[in-house]
């Protein structure tokens, strides 16, 4: 059974990392967005493997369902076809690569591997908290304040996003009904007649 789980874990991690690399490397912005969605799926699968069921489904619902669609919309609204000019990367992109490699190889891996984590054996089957019920109660009890702050944050962010992105249409085209149109035309004729 352990071997099976290890195989699945290796598969999922290759999916996640492979997709992440592709997100960074591909030229076409749309393709990188699609690879991003693939990596979100991989991360969702990893959560399932870690028995965080509600989180996996929330990940799929929020990231794959909403945020990636938002990113795709943004790309399409700003993707002018003549986006070919200029290279996709900074000239000195290798510097960024060096920094991130250094960060990974020198700092993170030694700390992680060297550490001897005190893995607590799984206490017992039923107390394994995976479900949404415990999370709901936690939100309403210990973490009520962060929950409310998160709610306010979302509200502020959304209204802010709308205000920023709202294109003030100079003259909004109202759909006049026939009666209004007739009235409008009569009015125009009157003030035309007055001049």
């Amino acid at each position, binding site marked *: 059974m352990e071997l099976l789980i290890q195989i699945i874990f290796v598969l999922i991690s290759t999916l996640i990392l492979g997709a992440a690399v592709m997100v960074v490397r591909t030229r076409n912005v749309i*393709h990188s967005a699609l690879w991003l969605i693939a990596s979100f799926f991989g991360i969702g699968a990893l959560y399932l493997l870690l028995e965080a*069921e509600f989180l996996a*489904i929330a990940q799929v*619902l929020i990231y*794959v369902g909403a945020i990636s*669609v938002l990113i795709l*919309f943004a790309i399409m609204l700003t993707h002018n076809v003549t986006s070919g000019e200029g290279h996709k990367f900074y000239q000195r992109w290798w510097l960024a690569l060096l920094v991130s490699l250094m960060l990974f190889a020198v700092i993170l891996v030694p700390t992680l591997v060297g550490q001897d984590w005190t893995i607590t054996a799984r206490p017992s089957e039923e107390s394994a908290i995976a479900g949404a019920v415990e999370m709901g109660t936690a939100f309403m009890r210990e973490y009520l304040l962060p929950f409310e702050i998160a709610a306010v944050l979302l509200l502020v962010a959304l209204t802010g996003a709308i205000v920023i992105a709202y294109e003030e249409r100079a003259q909004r085209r109202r759909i006049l009904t*026939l009666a209004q149109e007739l009235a409008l035309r009569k009015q125009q004729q009157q003030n035309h007649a007055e001049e």
Partner: protein
Amino acid sequence: MADVINHVLNTMLGLNAPEWLIIFISNSIAVTLIFAIAPLQMLFMTYFERRAIARMQDRLGPNRVGPKGIFQPVADGVKMFTKEDIVPTAADKMVHLLAPCVVAAPVMFMFAVIPWGPGMYAVDLDTGLLFFFAISSVSAVGLMMAGWASYNKFALLGAMRAVAQMVSYEVPALISIAVIVMLTNSMSIVSIIEAQSGLFISQVDVAGIPDLGLGWFIFSPVGLLGFICFFIAALAEGERTPFDIPEADSEIVAGYMTEYSGMKFALFFLAQYLLNFLLCAITVITFFGGWQGPGISWLWSMAVSEANPAGNPIFNVLAGILGTFYFLAKTYFFFFVMIWIRGAFPRLRVDQLMGFGWKFVIPLTIVNIFSASLWIGWIRWELNPDLAFLSALGEPYSFARWGFAFVATLVMNVAAYTLMTRINRSPDETIDELVADQVFGAVTLR
């Protein structure tokens, strides 16, 4: 499913199969069943729709291929298989190929969570309902990919409209389903259905009520308003009239499906019809008691289950058959309602559609959540000792409390509905001006 297989293999045939083999067999049977039943449902649904919409328009509908036109979907299917699959040269080959898969695959996932009868479910996730809607939002990504990959501005526009509509109508769908989750304290679909047994009065165990499996949520005002909002959202999610703007023939050629032909087009078609079926199924499960119906509980009491392993498996089969019959009858009734609405109503413009969604349906669902919380509060909570005067309402879960809650929430919901309709009239027009307002050409219909 697993316990039935376990019962058959171990007790009946006596060979003590290992645990994982039983799970493997039962799951593989479930998966093959789903992959067999889903396309069949789709075939029958296309036939059912064409006959029903034909009768509504005073004509016969397909009756040439096979007796009464039964094999018409088979003919359509063969046509779809044999049609040449044209891919536009400037299209993004890989994404063009992947798009139908990304649209059709989630629909198959959603079947995993649907219970067809008592004990007849592929998997019982304890967040089943949320899983259902999470996976359904993935197909929106598939639509976007299809629209973009076809390198055709009509397809792109159609895709954007479809995705905007699906995402914006997912909000009311989820909120109106949240009401049901509040009523049943769990998101697992199986427990939602089990909570709808009894007779007309849900969530209140009043002695002497025979368990006829009719305690559906629709019979409470909270459920009624939830059903109305959810069904409107389901119509929009499944792109049925009056919300089928994305592939409305008159406006944008075939929406995101313009550049597809042959098998890929059939996949889109399959995904759309199965999504409609599933949305009807979820409507039935959450508001009309899924496979609940008179006689099920009696049969199930004698069948093999955890509660009484000594039961006779024959009753499993019988209860399953009756349950499936109830479930499918109700689901196809709602599909008929979808077709009925398609036969009766014109199509909404995109701005009307969005306005209707955000200004009418979502406020109603929020009000519905408020009234649901009142409903739960009144029925279930013990009374704080110093609020003695409320003790007149009787014990928690008592009939008196149910009556009071029923009346209160009914008044609240009806008031919300009429308020919403009155608010949504454009502010600068009084009733008389609305009368003078021309809706259809030169004649005002009041």
